[in-house]
């Protein structure tokens, strides 16, 4: 066969005028070059699939005459909140004891103790009012200070008379003599339909309480204002959230409704103390604050040369040239930038390179063991010109297992401030476009080199095994694909067996849980439904057992961290066991009717 006419090729080689224009276009540098020509309306961060279902129910189906689990669930949830108001007049029903009598101390240290009961006690029922009084008895005031309920499951009852059941999570906390105590429980509530629905009974699924010891327990204080006391930019700039700027700054600067701006701790000025770099959205300067000897902060953003106005999501303090000071690597949306530290905290730009995708997190490691640090960038969204779908999100397809996102990058350090894209030659171009949010290096097989875990939104994650500087995605065979909406990855040895274990934060959506367990949720195959359920489950913890990984998330009780973003292993009580902190919440605005 022969090649025939090649019009486009020929024109670009023969029509000099247009060829010249094209190359000129390539050289231009706009913050959101790819976004200029397309939709202005869509936010950067997507809803999760299950959440989409919620909207569908509420916009379309709620108007339907049919049984709408979401409407019923809302009514029951609201009714339960009313009944749990200490002033409420309670129906005269009998329920299981809500604070079991067989509590066992399952954890204790200098600071606090944890008491648990696996089962609701016996079948001895007592009036609801009495059950609630004894539940609240741990607080000297007779009632909790804070209460939060989550309805995570709703099922129509088998009996036909308009009965249904809900499962809820109960979180209460309040002052005690030594500090704040907390109660966590799960209840199974049965209801009769009505307006409002009528509560028929409560069964306890599980219960635990956390009691502080004398001395105040494990406690954290918000000291933010005091450390920023002498840095006015905190009050002027950092005390205004994204929503303030969304209505003021031109969107093209790079306003990210999700507020995906990170922080980094590192020693910028070489005095041995960690300083903090705060990334900011486009149109606002990034901030560098150095730590004064007394623990407060000094704003040196401008004089250190790092007050970039372009959208920045994440930054690392890393010694890229092994000269003993901390240089900077920045993930700035469509660009990545490297800056050299002169040793005294003054930074000079060494490279600024266009990325093929919209960059989010980054992490450094010496993957090729040549003695200098290399960088891996997550490029969640594809570049606009490659993406003809609607909106900046693109459309993840299929949305529970999408592989049409932006490409991630491995940038190899070749020394003397030379860097090259080694993604393809190292085999990291495999499964590389899965809407990656976060990455973290760890030598999970303890063979002396750094392997890489990548947390992907909308689907499977990657675990790249490092074999002499070439990578193989072993997430499937190692059992850590964690098919759900991955937002972050942190490594820590939670069981102290010497092997690092990954904890991945995902979205826990009570709405998603409720809907995916509906009997006829989607007319799809069971396998697909299972994928949806898994998607809404929440965070995942995998135990590294040496020959692979075991999903221990549910037994370890670390799934329910709400709409989770950054998670981090950290031992907060110095007992030698890694705890976990999770930052969460999608979008809180002044609007009270949370979707």
């Amino acid at each position, binding site marked *: 066969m022969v090649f025939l006419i090649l019009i486009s090729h020929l*024109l670009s*080689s023969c029509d*000099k005028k*247009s060829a010249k224009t094209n190359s000129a276009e390539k050289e231009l540098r*706009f913050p959101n070059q790819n976004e200029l020509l397309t*939709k*202005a*309306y869509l*936010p950067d961060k*997507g809803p999760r699939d299950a959440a*989409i279902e919620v*909207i569908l129910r509420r916009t379309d189906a709620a108007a*339907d005459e049919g049984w709408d689990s979401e409407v019923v669930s809302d009514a029951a949830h609201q009714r339960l909140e009313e009944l749990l108001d200490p002033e409420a007049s309670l129906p005269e029903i009998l329920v299981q004891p809500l604070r079991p009598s067989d509590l066992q101390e399952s954890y204790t*240290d200098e600071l606090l103790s944890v008491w648990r009961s696996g089962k609701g006690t016996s079948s001895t029922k007592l009036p609801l009012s009495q059950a609630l009084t004894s539940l609240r008895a741990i607080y000297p005031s007779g009632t909790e200070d804070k209460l939060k309920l989550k309805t995570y499951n709703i099922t129509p009852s088998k009996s036909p008379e*308009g009965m249904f059941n809900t499962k809820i999570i109960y979180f209460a906390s309040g002052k005690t003599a030594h500090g*704040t105590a907390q109660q966590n429980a799960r209840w199974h509530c049965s209801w009769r339909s009505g307006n409002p629905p009528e509560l028929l009974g409560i069964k306890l699924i599980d219960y635990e309480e956390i009691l502080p010891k004398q001395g105040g*327990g494990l406690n*954290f204080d918000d000291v*933010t204002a005091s*450390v920023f*006391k002498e840095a006015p930019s905190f009050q002027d700039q950092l*005390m205004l*959230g994204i*929503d303030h700027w969304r*209505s003021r*700054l031109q*969107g*093209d600067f790079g306003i990210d409704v999700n507020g995906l701006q990170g*922080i980094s*701790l590192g020693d910028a000025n070489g005095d041995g103390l960690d300083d903090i770099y705060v990334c900011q959205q486009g149109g606002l*300067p990034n901030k560098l604050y150095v730590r*004064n000897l007394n623990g407060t902060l000094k704003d040196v953003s*401008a004089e250190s040369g790092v007050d*970039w*106005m372009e959208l920045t999501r994440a930054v*690392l303090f890393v010694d890229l040239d092994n000269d003993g000071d901390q240089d900077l690597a920045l993930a700035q949306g469509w660009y990545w930038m490297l800056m050299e530290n002169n040793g005294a905290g003054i930074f000079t730009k060494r490279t600024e390179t266009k990325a093929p995708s919209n960059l989010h997190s980054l992490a450094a490691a010496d993957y090729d063991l040549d003695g200098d*640090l290399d960088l891996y960038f997550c490029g969640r969204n594809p570049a606009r010109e490659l993406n003809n779908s609607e909106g900046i*999100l693109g459309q993840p397809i299929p949305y529970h297992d999408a592989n049409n996102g932006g490409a991630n990058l491995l940038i190899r350090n070749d020394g003397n401030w030379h860097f090259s894209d080694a993604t393809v030659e190292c085999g990291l171009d495999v499964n590389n476009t899965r809407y990656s949010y976060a990455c973290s290096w760890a*030598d999970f097989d303890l063979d*002396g080199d750094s392997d890489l875990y990548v947390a992907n939104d909308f689907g499977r994650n990657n675990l790249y095994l490092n074999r002499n500087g070439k990578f193989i995605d072993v997430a499937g065979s190692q059992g850590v694909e964690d098919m759900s909406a991955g937002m972050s990855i942190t*490594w820590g040895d*939670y069981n102290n*067996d010497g092997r690092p274990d990954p904890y991945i934060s995902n979205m826990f959506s009570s709405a998603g849980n409720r809907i995916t367990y509906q009997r006829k949720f989607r007319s799809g195959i069971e396998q697909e439904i299972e994928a949806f359920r898994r998607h809404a489950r929440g965070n995942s913890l995998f135990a590294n057992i040496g020959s692979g990984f075991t999903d221990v998330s549910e*037994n370890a*009780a670390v799934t329910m961290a*709400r709409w*989770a973003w*950054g998670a981090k292993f950290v*031992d*907060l009580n*110095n007992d030698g066991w890694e*705890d*976990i*902190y*999770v930052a969460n*919440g*999608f*979008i809180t605005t002044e609007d009270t009717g*949370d*979707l």
Partner: protein
Amino acid sequence: MSQSPENLSAALADIKASDRYKLGWKALTELIGQGRSFSGNESNCFFLNTRDGRFTDASAATGLSLYDDGRAVAVCDWDFDGSQDLWVSNRNAPRVRLLRNSSRGGDWLALRLSGTSSNKDAVGARVVLDLGDNRLRSKTVRAGDGFLAQSSKWLHFGLGNKATISSATVYWPGGKVEKISGLKMHQYHTLEQGKGQAVLWKPPAENLAIKTSQITFNESNDTTRTWLIGRIPLPRLEGIPDTGNSPKLINLWSESCAPCVAEISEWTKHEKKIREAGLDIVALNVGLLDENQRKTTPITFPFNSGKASPEILDVLDIFHRTFVELQQPLPIPTSFLLDKEGRVAAIYKGHVPLFTLLDDVALLSKPEIEARDAAVPFPGRWASDLFPPQAIRLAESFARAGNPSLRKRYLKDYLLRFESEETRLYLGRLLLDENNLEQAVRVFAGISATTENEADYHRSAGILLLKYNQIRPARNHLKAALSVYKDNPDFRFNLGIAEAGSGNLVESLNHFRACVRMKPTDAVAHFQLGNALQATGKGHDAVTHYRKSLQVRPGWMFPANNLAWLLSTHPDSELRNGEEAVKLITPIIKADGGKNHTTLSTLAAALAETGDFKGAIETTTRALHYAQSVGANDAGLRAALSNYRNGKAFRGK
């Protein structure tokens, strides 16, 4: 109330899953765009490791249940009190918080490594402590862990109660193992690779000025000023008087709105100052839309006044939504500041103070790069250029809002006043999509700034039409310019393409010949000439020009493939040379990855010509596989395959 999940499912099943998906995205993104809360008010979670393989949510009991929209978490011992503190970044205010751990719990020690043969930061190094309790405490130096976060490079070990360290080991990147001595409880240490000995490090002795403190939220203020970069004009609108070449403020107001009236009075009072600054004002009364308010007494406003038509309001609203991310309706008062070219420079929602207005008018005459600094609330360093004007984006917004004819009108008007090749191309394509060829060509032709003479116009139009695959009209335009451009080799080449594409092969031959005569080193022209010769049955001449093309551009796949094909399949045995064809095509296949069915089929033909039918069959089978995988027509390949199976080489016509 009927309870039938089946009905609901049936109803939903009618909508295709993919449509529901898109619908869901759209609904959700719109709601978020309007400022709705979604999975908000969620408290951060602290999971306490209870050492039995389980964790307990102890967020509330520890003061860590913050209701911010939390994002990144970074840890360090900020106050050097031996316990880990937390830095958290948020979507909303405060954008960062420091949460100080005021309890200590168990024993601890901290260690900071530095590499010598390993990277200086010791990233990837793992320290393992053995406390003699059949457990290992291990931590790795990381740069980037969690989400958008980097924690301190200090390795902080909690050790529980009364622990003794029976051994401490570093596993450096690459596998070197080093024992550490000299670690002390409740101390900070540094360790340099190869030294084996930890060195005590003392935190600063200064008293801390860190204390529990209340943050103060800034008061919210609905008055906003948005300065725009890449200015573009509003569409022509009836009801907005033309006030000539001076900056202009378009103000939306109503009598029932007190701040509006105050603003109008202020402008009336300071008329002189405003006129001196060169600003004209057009106050458009929104209230007049309401029939009941028609009887209102006319105000004595020294500038222009009128009523805001629904069209004006609609256009201003779309303009605002296109450039401001939060999708909320315009409040009253709202004002748009236009520069003397009529381009929107600023949008003010709420009352605009007179001094802001006058400062902004002064800013209009500054270069846009300076005005950019005034567009943002704080100074900083820019790495980027200015955004270009975004007329296309606004036009698209009009179309999306259901007004495609305004899109077209706006772009046409824009092009009458401003030069923008991108906008021309966009509008031209729009017109082409509507089959409005005549107008499309006029728009495209405007691309080259000088279209005074007809030949230029026809030449530009022809080239652009070629670009959009409108071959026949392209040919007609190019032919009309031939007499002027007959000595331009590139022009002749393009016309050759257009003639070939229109089926006039003989004509095309002449133009390609003319091109290679004027430009003998044009590999592309030789290649196309070769194609045209082959198509007109002049195989021998085709071979000559394919070879010339390859001489200029060795290894170029197109002429190499076509030449190899001719050498393998030409009916004239004098011309055929299977051996050479194999030599030609083999490196091409190596370079293209071996998955191109076209080059594979050429190799098969060449192999068959050398008598290697086994190889030809195998190669054709591969070609078929790849042809099918890209959905190409495989009839020719099948015909060739049956030839080879019968021990026959393939012959062209």
